[in-house]
């Protein structure tokens, strides 16, 4: 049994130092497709198939944990000596994921080449809801995303904690479901690209704000979150005219992503396909 090392939390200090390496890599990896085709000639079909399978599995395993996948990790762990046919391998892996799993490989950071998997299938309310610690987290996340959105797409961290405190969730008290909530919200959700956590300039002591991350934007939509808020407050979504027009504009501009209104409400970000449990306490919103 050959165990593989894993680093659970990416080392932030490595991020900056990669710039030059990435540039060189980019040059090697973005060859013209004619060149890639020539490179493929020297390899057997079976060799390339093997790499495609390994990459598909790698992507699936990482995504099950909602860890965004860095191209650097793909190259190091899977591609290795096959860098010159990388475009072919990644394209075929993407096609396989769509055809077999209904998952789309999406690059959420084109500068640092970071990927996530997004489902092509419409998510349905209460679908095979697996009530576990992950689903509960998504409930918490939905509440936070809603709060951020209704505050105009950005909220001060201290305001978020004030809101959560009314729900019995506090940053300095270990929570029986969420554990270290401060870490969950400001570290884990950020690493999973559900939230962005930025320092507010000219604040001393430092203050931070929270915004939606790229995964949140891909897995749910402003319209869905607005509908969630509206449902809780038993109001028409159009009551909030600013948020409504923003949400409508987003729907119109995203022609390829699943609208999520087929087959019932779908609210909030999701794990593999259960929708967010709407058991999150409402009062605060």
């Amino acid at each position, binding site marked *: *049994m050959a165990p593989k090392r894993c680093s659970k939390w990416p080392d932030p200090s490595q991020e900056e130092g990669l710039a030059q390496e990435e540039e060189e890599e980019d040059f090697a990896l973005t060859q013209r497709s004619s060149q890639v085709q020539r490179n493929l000639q020297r390899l057997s079909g079976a060799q390339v198939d093997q790499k495609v399978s390994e990459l598909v599995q790698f992507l699936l395993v990482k995504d099950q944990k909602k860890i965004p996948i860095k191209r650097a990790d793909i190259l190091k762990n899977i591609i290795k000596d096959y860098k010159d046919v990388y475009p072919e391998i990644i394209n075929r892996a993407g096609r396989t994921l769509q055809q*077999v799993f209904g998952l789309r490989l999406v690059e959420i950071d084109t500068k640092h080449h970071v990927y996530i998997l997004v489902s092509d299938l419409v998510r349905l309310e209460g679908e095979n809801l697996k009530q576990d610690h992950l689903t509960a987290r998504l409930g918490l996340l939905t509440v936070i995303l809603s709060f951020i959105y209704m505050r105009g797409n950005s909220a001060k961290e201290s305001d978020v904690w004030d809101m959560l405190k009314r729900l019995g969730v506090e940053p300095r008290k270990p929570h029986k479901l969420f554990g270290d909530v401060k870490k969950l919200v400001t570290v884990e959700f950020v690493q999973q690209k559900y939230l962005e956590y930025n320092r507010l300039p000219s604040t001393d002591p430092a203050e931070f704000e929270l915004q939606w991350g790229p995964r949140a934007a891909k897995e749910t939509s402003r319209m869905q979150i607005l509908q969630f808020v509206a449902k809780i407050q038993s109001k028409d979504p159009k009551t909030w005219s600013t948020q409504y027009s923003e949400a409508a504009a987003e729907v119109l501009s995203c022609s390829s992503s699943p609208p999520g209104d087929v087959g019932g409400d779908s609210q909030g970000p999701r794990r593999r396909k259960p929708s967010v449990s709407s058991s999150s306490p409402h009062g605060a919103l």
Partner: protein
Amino acid sequence: MAAQMTDGHRRFLQVLMSHGIMEGSVARTLHKDCCEIHKVYYAHDKLDDFISVVNLHLQPLFMQIRKGMSEDDGRTYYALVNLAETEITKMASDYTENELELFRKTMDLIILSESGFASSTNILNLADQLKTKKMKKKEAEQVLQNLVQDKWLSERDGEYTLHTRCIMEMEQYILNNYQDLARKCNICRSLAIQSQICETCGIGMHLPCAGKYFKAQTEPHCPHCNEFWPHEIPEINRPDSQLSSSASTERRGPSASGTRRR
């Protein structure tokens, strides 16, 4: 016959993948829902055929939806497994080297034990003997919790055994690496982690398989050496709720009441 993947198949696969392992009746409901949502042809007793279509497409990826039996209750479970036998691929990216070493040593204890269980005390004692990197007992306790949550181990009364999902995924690996040390059930011929063993000739049986084989026999005898079978026979509660997945050649056991061996 073109076996096409439909969105119904894809949804089934996505949901199964998120659960890791799924009990038979839950899988059947999921099958029905997926077909209804995507307007795919549905026949209530054709789950195995439905799964075969998915497996056809998973084959080139060295993955498969496998059907197995729980050693506790004899019920059928479905899990998405990795066919590559050389490493614990799925685990490998979730756990650090010393965590994997702890898991392997735990697996050793479990497989070499008579009951198929390893006590938490014995496992924690391994923690500071790890070759890769020593681990404190507190850390090891957390790792065990994670392993249970991820369904590699299951826990009962402070003792640990392999989760059904783990057995389904690693059966081939275990048989290859432990060889004669790993027991096989005399009735269904699959790997048996928990088993009843004949004290005379040494053959073993899964508890649900024993329950089914010895059903209603007042004086059970070993099928191999004919000696009196010295163990309490698990009771079969009711016929397994699956009515008709009879097309499969997989083993299945009745629901046993999970009577513990002495």
